[in-house]
């Protein structure tokens, strides 16, 4: 499934996210700029922060751990802030689109 990442510098990257992978994993594996993912996806670092620009309503809401960890993001937290290691793409009509913040730590 394709997901669009907008890097902090504005570059748009269309990335194929394999079945069962998270957005964070696909982004880091493809060298997308703007994600640190220091904790490797254990929802313990908040350095994989993203803003979901398209498709937010299709995603399951954050669980307790993600909600708590979102309080630690370095860039401004917005209503569409999520942790990309907790997100998997869906087969929705239009691809998910996430924007990466200017800083992660």
């Amino acid at each position, binding site marked *: 499934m394709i997901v669009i990442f907008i890097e902090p510098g504005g570059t748009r990257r269309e990335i194929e996210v394999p079945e069962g992978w998270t957005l964070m994993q696909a982004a880091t594996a493809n060298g997308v700029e703007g994600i640190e993912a220091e904790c490797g996806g254990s929802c*313990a670092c908040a350095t994989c922060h993203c803003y979901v620009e398209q498709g937010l309503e299709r995603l399951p809401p954050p669980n307790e751990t993600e909600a708590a960890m979102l309080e630690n993001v370095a860039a401004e937290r917005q209503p569409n802030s999520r942790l990309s290691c907790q997100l998997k793409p869906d087969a929705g009509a239009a691809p998910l689109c996430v924007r990466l913040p200017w800083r992660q730590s």
Partner: protein
Amino acid sequence: MSFAFDPFAAAVDADPFPYYKILRDEYPCFWSAEAGMWVLSRYADIVVALNDWQTYSSAQGNMMTELPNRAGSTLGTTDPPRHDRLRGLIQHAFLKRNLEAMAEPMRAIAKMVLVAVREREQFDFLEDFSSKFTVRVLFAVLGLPLGDEKQVRDQAVLMVQSDPVTRQKGPAHLAAFAWMTDYAAKVIEERRRQPQDDLISLFSQAEIDGDKLAEREVLLTTTTLIMAGIESLGGFMAMLALNLADHAAARRRLVAEPTLIPDAIEESLRYNTSAQRFRRCLQRDVTLHGQTMRAGDFVCLAYGSGNRDERQFPDPDSYDIDRKPKGHLGFGGGVHGCLGGAIARMACRIAFEEFLDALPTFRRVEAQLPWMPSSTFRSPLRLQLART
């Protein structure tokens, strides 16, 4: 001849990579009769397993040979939601930004340990540097009373080993585990009597949803933190030192430009992967690469192989500090990704800043290294280095 993969074999301790290549290319979902479990060796398959704890459960234990009665009572051996609550209690202390205060104490420990090493023409990196450094750093982080460092480290190293013949924990390994559990129990009791501002005090009094943690959870989580912290960190530092001894060009660059040390740490986590293999237990049947694994079967996730998978990392067998291998599996990943990742990175960086400053040039003395007999971890028992 049919292919066999025995994670208990000494040949695999010494050099698992040729086996991994065959596994990835020809048997990506392999039943190891010797280990009594499936082995997943490709990066992409391991990532999928790590993301799916509902299917790949840790609740029956995560070490290849599990310690008795540990499963179900520690972070690494529970599944969400219990796991997340347990982790929530201590996670905060391990956040990168909450570790900054540790930087100067860590540097002071490294400098102090190096005083004796500086004088020597030849020394054992493990005995003389990394063990002393990691034990003292972990003692400071967890709040353990000073005095028993050497014994604690020796037992931590024994606990993670297994007997290559019986493919189980032997009496010495079990005795080490019992020793560590006793040691943890004493520390917990002391901290309960006189709480201090440290992690064990906090943890030993913590509650989840109004319930105090079960005594076993406090005890075994503390025991595991000591083991995971000391053995994993010390073992990995030895692998990094080994890489720098063998790759003089990389070492020279780090000496000239210490800001590259974090890149070397990441590449060594990928290239060597001291935490080679962990296991999960299947909760439903899964068919992968034409094989059907059954609910109840154990599955080994070979992080060390995923990190050398050419499908993910081009030219995987070369050590390249410019690679910046994001997403490597050196700390595992998913809900059970290493709790100590940030602290381990910071401790390693500071240790090697000081080490390379004190000893900018060195070589290894022995061509063949004695490898630890462990189906889970991979590191040498001894690493003799000499100044050049």
